[in-house]
């Protein structure tokens, strides 16, 4: 069986992602359930990389049969990721603003805010 570079890299990346997720579970930052979902997702990525024929049905449904289509879909994926990243950044900014408002509200009443808030 001849393996391409992608077929080696993708399962390795998946393996690292799965190990990372379970590491977070042991650090109590992720629940077991979330790690299971994460494992299922990355296992699917690895499986598709090793067995590309497994998504024949998907190519039939989506019509992605040639390289041009694949490139288009890849760029759509990249754009989706950029939008996704921006949404996350906006969320972080919103959270910072919220923390500030909450902190001011508590300070005005003379109620201390935990130190943890400053670390976040």
């Amino acid at each position, binding site marked *: 069986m001849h393996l391409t570079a992608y077929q080696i890299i993708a399962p390795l990346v998946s393996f690292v992602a799965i190990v990372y997720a379970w590491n*977070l579970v042991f650090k*109590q*930052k*992720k*629940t*077991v*359930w*979330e790690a*299971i*979902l*994460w494992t299922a*997702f990355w296992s699917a990525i690895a499986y598709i990389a090793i067995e590309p024929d497994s998504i024949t049905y998907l190519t039939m449904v989506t019509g992605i049969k040639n390289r041009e289509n694949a490139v288009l879909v890849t760029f759509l994926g990249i754009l989706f990721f950029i939008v*996704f990243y921006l*949404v*996350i950044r906006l*969320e972080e900014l*919103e*959270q910072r*603003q*919220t923390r500030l*408002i*909450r902190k*001011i*509200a*508590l300070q*005005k*009443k003379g*109620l*201390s*805010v*935990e130190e*943890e808030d400053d670390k976040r």
Partner: protein
Amino acid sequence: MSEKRRIVAVIPAYNEETRVAHVITSAMEYVDTVIVVADGSKDGTPAVAEKAGALVIQHVDNCGAGAATMTGIEAARAMGADIVITLDADGQHDPHDIPAMLQPVLDGKADIVFANRFGVRNRIPFIRRVFNGIGNILTFAVTGKWVSDSQCGFKVFGPRAVREIDIRMSRYEFCTEIVRESVQRHWRMKEIPTKVIYSEYTMAKGQSFASGVKTALKILLRSFLR
């Protein structure tokens, strides 16, 4: 009750001047202190709440129910609260259910108690049942824990939960986050059937379909990226 525990009620409120006073006075029968977090209210909510006897904390801008609840819990923590009760300001929860909600915590059988509006005969509009059902399914999908009424704001946090709780989601997603916290921190959970009073007012104040979809997307996104 063998030892005296400090019980604090936290009521997040946004433009609730017509309703909040009644909720405060009813809750006061069962708790030591009532904290109202006026979440950027533009009406007379802070003044009305203060007059009714609550400690009022004001957010200068509207941050959402999750943020207001966490502000209230932090204030309660700073005041040395052992047990915190959260309930909505619009009067949909009956404060007379507080003793029943408190019992599992006082008996040392639970760290967190969830109200279950579907556990007794309540007149709940069909659309609310559907939305709550979707919320429950989504909560189960991201936490792996089934809670019969995961989106209800009426909860009791026992001493351990009061110490450990850390809500980061600002808006309605916080209900799902609390279930996640319960799972993550291995809190003992209980559900108690409670009354609910739906009116045109409470229906109008609830989440719209669009904000419900947004909430669902945020929950999924967060659970995956965490």
